[in-house]
């Protein structure tokens, strides 16, 4: 949702190479870490979020507007999502579909998924393409970019062993 219309608190996304994006919190408050993985398509977000393939990953949605048709029980893959977090450009709070039983923001919150919106996900996805796999932290707690960047860089050393 556009920041002018949203009441959501701020969130930060810090990459293991020190890049930090600022945005709004989506889903649960708190902090999460995981490897960033791109996810394409305007639709299919619920399947992707509840997929076993997304375990411990932070999904980066390259299509900018996610959540347009809400969520429904039939499109759920695993009963409980196992992914680490989500990065979006714009999350929809007023979805539309005859199939929906809820909206994606509530779903993310109920499932304890920490995420961020307002991020230029095209730029981020292209960065992943060029820089290779990267871990990242999303936080609604530590809102100091420098501090979060330091922690993200440390995180990378322990998880991926990738030199910065």
């Amino acid at each position: 949702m556009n920041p002018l219309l949203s009441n959501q608190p701020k969130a930060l996304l810090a990459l293991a190479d020190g890049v930090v994006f600022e945005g709004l919190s989506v889903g649960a408050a708190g902090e999460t870490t995981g490897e960033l993985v791109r996810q394409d398509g305007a639709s299919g977000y619920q399947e992707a979020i509840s997929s076993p393939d997304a375990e411990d990953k932070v999904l980066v949605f390259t299509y900018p507007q996610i959540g347009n048709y809400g969520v429904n029980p039939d499109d759920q893959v695993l009963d409980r999502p196992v992914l680490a977090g989500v990065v979006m450009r714009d999350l929809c709070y007023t979805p539309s579909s005859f199939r929906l039983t809820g909206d994606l923001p509530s779903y993310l919150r109920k499932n304890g998924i920490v995420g961020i919106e307002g991020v230029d996900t095209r730029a981020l996805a292209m960065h992943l393409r060029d820089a290779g796999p990267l871990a990242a932290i999303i936080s609604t707690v530590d809102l100091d970019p420098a501090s979060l960047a330091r922690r993200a860089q440390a995180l990378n050393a322990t998880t991926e062993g990738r030199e910065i």
Partner: protein
Amino acid sequence: MPKRTDLKKIMIIGSGPIVIGQACEFDYSGTQACKALKALGYEIVLVNSNPATIMTDTSVADRTYVEPLTNESIAAVIEKERPDALLPNMGGQTGLNCAVALGKAGILEKYGVEVIGCDVEAIQVGEDREKFAKAMAEIGLECCPGDFAYSLEDAERIADTMSFPLICRPSYTLGGAGGGVAYDRRELRELVAQGLELSANGEVLIEKSVLGWKEIEYEVMRDATGKGIAICSIENFDPMGVHTGDSIAIAPAQSLTQPELDKLREYSLRIIDKVGVSCGGSNIQFAVNPEDGHVIVIEMNPRVSRSSALASKATGFPIAKVSAQLAVGLTLDEVQNEITQADSYAHDPSVDYCVVKAPRFAFEKFPGTSDTLTTRMKAVGEVMALGRTFEESFQKAMRSLENGEVMFGADHPKLFDEEHFREGVSVPTPERIYYVVEALRRDWTIERLYNLTGIDPWFLNRLKDIVAVERWLSNHRLDDMDAAQMLAVKQMGFCDAQIAHFVGATETEVRATRKAFRVTPEVKTVDTCSGAHAAHAEYHYKAYEARPVLGANLVTCDERVATDKPRVMILSAGPNRIGQGIEFDYCCVHAAYALHAAGFESVMVNCNPETVSTDYDTSDKLYFEPLTFEDVMDIVDIERPVGVICSLGGQTPINLAARLAAAGVPIMGTQPEAIDLAEDRDRFAALLDQLKIAYPASGVAETYAQAAEVAERIGYPLLVRPSYVLGGRGMAIVNSHKQLRSYLAEATRASQDHPVYLDSFLQDAVELDVDGVADGEQCYVGAVLEQIEEAGIHSGDSACCCPPYSLAQAMLDEVLETTRRLVLAVGVVGAFNVQYAVHNGTLYCIELNPRASRTVPFSSKATGVPLAAIAARVMSGEKLADLDLPAEMGGDNDHFACKEAVLPFDRFPGASTVLGPEMKSTGEVMGIAKNFPSAYAKTQLAISYGLPTDPSQGKVFVSVRDADKRAVAGLARELTLMGYKLAGTTGTAKALEAAGIPCQAVRRASEMKPNVATMVASGEICLIINTPGGAEQGESMRADYYELRRLAVHHRVTNCTTLSQAQAMVEAIEQARMGSLGVVALQDL
């Protein structure tokens, strides 16, 4: 599979003139197809009657025939060229219809021409709704319940079994022409009667109404191995009931879940397989019930289409190009993706932006017709916008329309009819979108709006968010805003002018503040893969994004590519509209080619998805962006061009020139000062006085009293018009004080705060158009065109001939000499167009357009002089003297070229069909032949009116004004000698009888039946020669003239309304009767 080697020569059929429902998107696809097949080593034979196309340039195909798209002329081309194969699915419905007709006539078989891409049987299954419904049932898909009517009785019987409203769709028509929604039996009878007449096979489908269902389109493609991909899904903003060409449309589909989309994709591929599309692209339309997801197949087009052009531009996937390659045997995995160069086209492209298409209408040109949108397409053009979100793209699309409503009525409350506000919301019209936004401002609920409009709540909620940001802005002042807030507003797609309105500032202040905040757009790229691979084509759009707060230098937010070549920006023409269409795009495309060849980097800016200019490989860089001051300035800031070309894209860029120059942008070619000199009537008149060039007496008026005073001084008839117009918007000829008063009442509405010009109208004058290029020192005339209709009919609507067919050499010399003096005095650098009228042996200058005109493509094709390319090179600094130009006017031609206008009256029932100084045509055709009558005959055949070459087709009706009575006798005698029977009104019949020519006297349309009107309606008349009287004629006779014109349009009877046109027509008939008109390749001229 490798490409086929058994084929050497391939014929491609174009789509003919631009008409509503079939516009320049087929120039885009046909040009792509020609280029792709030529690159594979095939020899290409092209047939198309439309000279304003890039595809008919001699460099695109090997053999180019600008000939009528009739069986006879295509057969003549086939006989001459002996192609091995015919690719029929690039030329729209016209191309398919030609292929079917050629097949039926046995011509393809006779000459052994193989239809590739899609066979005739598949075309028929796709197009014939009965066969299609049966095919769908066989693969378990549901079509709309309904049945075919071949008569009014059938229709009544079908209606008995179903409930109203019912949808009527005639078979085999363009863009759903003749379709509509019937709410009761009376409307059903009207629609069916009209549909039966329009349908090529007299068939109208009557269907269950799915009004209010979602309309979803799929663009799919398959190759000969059966591999299929989906290129794009498109969701219409308006629900079913509004033609997809008239609806705002969004790609990709926004409100369907993945399983629903998977299902539609699978259905689409199953459908093209069943229909028998062997390879290539197709378009499938579905209706989806928003309550339960129930899917009905509406139709499929086994060819490239308007939607496929949109899908190509929306995704970067060149559908026509790949379709053509598949047609010659390549498979999807063998064709390399041009943009990524990393893989093939064998998988669905992916997008990471939102695309919004919006239609552009021209109802203001057709007063009297209803502007309610139905299943029959009425839009004359469209725009596309790319942005990160729907909100951003939607607002960009709305400002791309250039209709003065970027604020959705917030600055223009008069837009809303308060008394009928609810209808404004519920009835689909071009203005409905503004009513919907206004209703949200008035706190109408989403539910209420959904119930009234059927527009999906997802879209309504996005508009509600836009309105919420409007409110936020209204509660703030520019000084209160910070950078983050400014960025957030820009991310919602607001333009600076909109922000200025709501915060109470000027656009300039907003822009300055925004730039001080460093809130500027990023350059993003259309790459078919959402950034998964690096892009090798510079196909860009602008978008507002937040950069990383740390490490921004590590991330490519802005994808601009720096080069050291000097850059030239070309501003193209925006949406097609009447008066500004493909002809200007043609000029811009040529400029891009010429500038690239001259060592510049060409940067194209345009927002029209139908065009060749918005193909990513036409220019070095493409910005798919609105042509507003703000958007153009943003691109100037990004690209830092050495110059901007404003004089090739019609009035849109010309109108920006002064403001851009004032902002310090280098304008290439004719400077804004010179543009103003040519366009400001007073300054221009003073210049003509100084140069001793005659021009019609004129005056200016702001009120009726002033206008009446001018009229007294100059005398009637008067040509009246508002200032600064293109395509003659708002022009009229008035004959009396009474007409003057009613014109002014309307004109002030059309153009507020602008004075009205009144010119003495030169009755019976011959009008001339001169196209050329000047460089400040020298003036080069490319072509002189003589209008066939007399002065007073807009040159865009008049037939013309090049070279002039009736002009004395002395007058031609005077025209050339006058043109040189005038153009150099104004200071034109680049293209120009001068219009003259020759009246009683005197040459009058009507106007000078310091820009490329609508006739440039025709002039170039008629003479072989590439005017637009020359203009571009001159504007970039070269001199005419150094360009090694062909002789002026193409030297001594041994052929004549005629152009005829194509009018859209059949789309606008109820509208006046009278031609005048306001342009109404949508397109044009060209005929080339050894003599003027044959060339003119070809244009008449190309417009599908056909020529009444056989006296058994009916009588010739003759009714002329007194001044023409003596001259018409010669024509009447020729007709009688050819065996035609004549009929005429009492006066004309008497005059003819007196000259010894038998002529049956019949009553006027306003008199007792039977009369001429009943004769036309019953098909007894095959040709009408009816010249209207001037001021001396009574109102009732003028009413007869109008009625006859209306009937002629309705019953498609050729109607000559000037004696010069009648003369040309009679000579054309004589030529056509003498045998084949012959065909000629442009390469042989």
